[in-house]
């Protein structure tokens, strides 16, 4: 089933087939080549070398300077449903599996960040992806809490010298101050190349291509894993009827989304906006009536 990304119709005949990622976590080996390739290609700054103590994950989360993030989950669960009988030294069953997932911006069909951007900096590309124009972004920060996945963030690193702050005290700030996120390598797509992360992935856990084709491929892969009785195999962001109209970058997971730090039922905030505007109009009208009533009873 094909889904058109919001706003793609404005391209008319210049619209291209929708491109995206299918990230198959069942073959991810946690090498982080995607993280490195992304940083290299997009010239993302280093933002601290910290040990989190959380398995092999020292990136922590997606943000302004990390557009791919590999999650590592160590679990007391068998990889396959029938593999219940590993024996430990004392004879107790001790299943263990290690889940790895390379997370990325979902490039939603209905994108909250794009909807709420008040400058038009965030836009829908001809490939159906969602990109920030950094020469327009004024760092208002509205897209940050509007993303149901916590993908976007403001860059707090210092401005580059060529990007010097203005001399006025109110207008001058030391930090970059703009919001950054995955562009699905818009520059590479324009040149007919695949995004850096997919190019670097050694196991094809990150698959890039036309979304319709990726969806078919994912269905087949899921059917195979189910036949082999893999534990918890499920597609995430594959269903165009979900709260964001399906993802442009979707996943095959081996457990519930929240185990990987993903929301189980993401909904684009603007889904509720028509009703929210009605509530606001009603509250405003009530305010007028209420304040008018305060004048009944005279000036004292």
């Amino acid at each position, binding site marked *: 089933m094909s889904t058109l990304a919001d706003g793609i119709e404005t391209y008319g005949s210049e619209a291209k087939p929708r491109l995206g990622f299918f990230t198959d976590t069942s073959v991810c080996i946690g090498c982080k080549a995607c993280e490195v390739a992304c940083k290299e290609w997009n010239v993302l700054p280093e933002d601290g070398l910290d040990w989190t103590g*959380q398995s092999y994950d020292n990136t*922590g989360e997606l*943000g302004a300077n990390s557009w791919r993030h590999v999650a590592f*989950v160590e*679990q*007391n669960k068998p990889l396959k449903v029938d593999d219940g009988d590993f024996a430990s030294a004392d004879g107790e069953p001790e299943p*263990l599996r290690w889940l790895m997932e390379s997370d990325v911006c979902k490039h939603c069909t209905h994108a909250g960040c794009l*909807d*709420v*951007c*008040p*400058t*038009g900096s965030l836009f829908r590309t001809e490939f159906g992806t969602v990109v920030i124009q950094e020469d*327009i*972004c*004024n*760092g*208002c*920060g509205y897209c*940050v*809490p*509007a*993303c149901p996945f*916590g*993908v976007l963030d*403001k860059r707090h690193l210092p401005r580059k010298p060529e990007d010097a*702050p203005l001399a*006025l005290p*109110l*207008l*001058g*700030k030391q*930090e970059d101050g*703009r919001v950054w996120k995955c562009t699905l390598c818009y520059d590479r797509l324009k040149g007919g190349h695949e995004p850096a992360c997919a190019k670097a992935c050694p196991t094809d856990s990150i698959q890039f291509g036309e979304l319709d084709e990726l969806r078919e491929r994912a269905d087949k892969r899921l059917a195979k894993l189910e036949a082999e009785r893999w534990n918890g195999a499920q597609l995430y962001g594959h269903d165009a009827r979900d709260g964001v109209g399906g993802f442009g970058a979707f996943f095959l997971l081996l457990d519930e989304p*929240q*185990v990987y*730090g*993903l*929301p*189980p*039922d*993401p909904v684009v*905030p*603007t889904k*509720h906006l028509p009703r*929210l505007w009605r*509530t*606001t109009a009603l*509250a*405003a009208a*009530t*305010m007028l009536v*209420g*304040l008018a*009533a*305060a*004048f009944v*009873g*005279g*000036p004292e």
Partner: protein
Amino acid sequence: MTRSITDVGTSMQSYYGRPIVKEPVWKGEIPTYFFTGGIAGGSAVLHGLARVTGNDRLARTTLVVGAAAEAVSPLLLISDLGRPERFLNMLRVFKVTSPMSVGTWILVASSSSATGAAALEAFGVLRPLKWLAELTWFTTGAPLATYTGALVANTAIPVWSEARAELPWVFGAGACASAGAAATLFAPGGPARRAAIAGAVAELGLMQAMEKRLGLVGEVYKQGESGRFARISKACTAAGAGLLAWRGRESRAAAAAGGALVLAGSLALRWSVFKAGFQSARDPRYTVEPQKERLQQKGESA
């Protein structure tokens, strides 16, 4: 063994207890703006009604107070931007899908008409233009006071998003309370005092109803900084409204004290709502639990 989502280890049901949605990047300017914008919006409506009813004293007071609030508000918003020098980029587009875009245009109209009308009144020139500015200001008042509720509710922050039925009302009530209180502080009179009392009572009732209906997520209003601001807000608002109702008509001092208390309560309320958003984003339980419940309901109805 019962598993909690924040368990860490091989049985954890969250990703190391890390947040799923990002905390907002907004700073103290934003809740302060919610307060000054509320005073401005409420003053705009009070001012228009005062003009119509010939209450010149209240009209003058609300124009001065309102224009001051309208002058400060854009500065607060610009100062919070990551790139303040690019604030004009807000005016490249008008997007009804973005309450911030809609609000920016409301504020542009409201702020320029209020400060323009105040200047024309001070210099006593261009009467018809001043009336036009005052009329414009009046029409922008209620939208300015309430859109901020829509702005925060239109996010993925659990405690804001789930309160989308209440937040515009909470902010509207807060605007009535604080605009009435500000006018009472400088020039006590019946309409302003009644607006402050009614707004304060509505504020208290709405906050109570919102916290209750929010269920699990609503508990952040009892915790941490949000809880502290909520308690300050309730105490100040109730004391101020009580004082205004009891002695606000007879005693100038009581009117001023009551007005100041209601103002403080309204400011604390905005900070409480603001901090609650951060607290609810920080704990993945508030993101995951309501969503899991929603999925379960969908599954049952399907």
